[in-house]
């Protein structure tokens, strides 16, 4: 067990955990931030996506010991960011979700895309979201929502 001080959604949080624990489980079980989801545990589905130092990161494979002082933003905090808010609003406007389990990760990946590419093309969207799995099949609506968010932001 080791103690880590994490910067999560702008707040300093101290946790005492096994150093090999993936960030995902630290967020979910120690900090009770359950919006970030467990879908596969091997970074193949994207449901666990958070931002670490601004980079979309698959928290299920990153041990908490490798985070350091890099700031973490989760789905619970992304709404404080104008791009995050626009994406969430677009998701609701376009009635994207079905079961919703993958959508935290989809949104976090979409925000990362829009932060670097204000007007993504179909190809941009497909490349950046191409590693996020949705078994309910909401991809077409995700594409539309990203374009809508882009339109609202630019």
């Amino acid at each position, binding site marked *: 067990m080791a103690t880590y001080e994490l910067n999560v959604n702008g707040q300093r949080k101290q946790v005492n955990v096994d150093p090999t624990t*993936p960030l995902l489980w630290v967020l979910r079980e120690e900090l009770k931030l359950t919006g970030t989801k467990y879908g596969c545990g091997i970074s193949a589905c994207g449901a666990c996506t958070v931002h670490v130092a601004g980079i*979309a990161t698959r928290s299920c494979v990153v041990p908490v010991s490798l985070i350091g002082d890099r700031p973490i933003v989760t789905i619970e905090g992304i709404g404080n960011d104008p791009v995050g808010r626009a994406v969430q609003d677009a998701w609701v406007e376009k009635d994207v979700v079905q079961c919703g389990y993958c959508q935290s990760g989809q949104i976090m990946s979409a925000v990362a895309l829009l932060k670097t590419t204000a007007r993504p093309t179909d190809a941009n969207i497909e490349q950046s979201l191409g590693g996020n799995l949705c078994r309910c099949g909401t991809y077409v609506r995700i594409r539309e929502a990203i374009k809508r968010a882009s339109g609202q932001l630019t």
Partner: protein
Amino acid sequence: MLLRSRRTGSVFDQAAPNANRILRSVTVILVACGAGLLLMSFASPQARHGDRARTRTEGLVAWQQVYSVLTSPRCINCHTATNYPQQGDDRRRHFANVIRGPEGKGVAGLNCASCHQETNADSTGVPGGHNWHLAPLSMRWQDLNDEPLSSVAVCRAITDQSKNHHLDGPGLLKHHEDEALVRWAWQPGRRPDGTMRTLPPLTHEEFVAATRRWVEAGTPCPPGR
């Protein structure tokens, strides 16, 4: 058949066949004497270390050893010709549609750094190293069907300074010796199932030594295309 060596234009190439044979015989005798003298005067390993007169043959042998490492999975999986990396000893396409991106670091939302950190994450089975990214397309060692390129093709690619970020022989040696992602291949970490990833066919020390011999021979490439 003419040997087309761009680095060391062999005197054997240029003479007519008969003269060729005479020259060859003379040269052999001279070389044998010289070699004997060399052997007598450079008996110690330390002395050999400073010896830069590697023959082309020795250089080619060393190159094959280097080639065997470059085309082993831990190295070649990131030297692809496509817009995706490979993974595993079976060199399958990397899962989750991970792609190259403009700088070999993936794309926004799906970067290499989205999963690969500065060090291996053995508890989750994800390899890591400093600045994890794909080798540029100029350093592709496979074709578009994911088949490894031939020894001569890889040799030419990595010795072409217009493709290899202007690395000369010593530069290549340093790259093999010091570059973090190169060194990673010998500490590749555990897979998700807990087993260790397989290592390249030579140790890192052997790899560096072979590279040195190859560089000392003037980085010769094998014949052919």
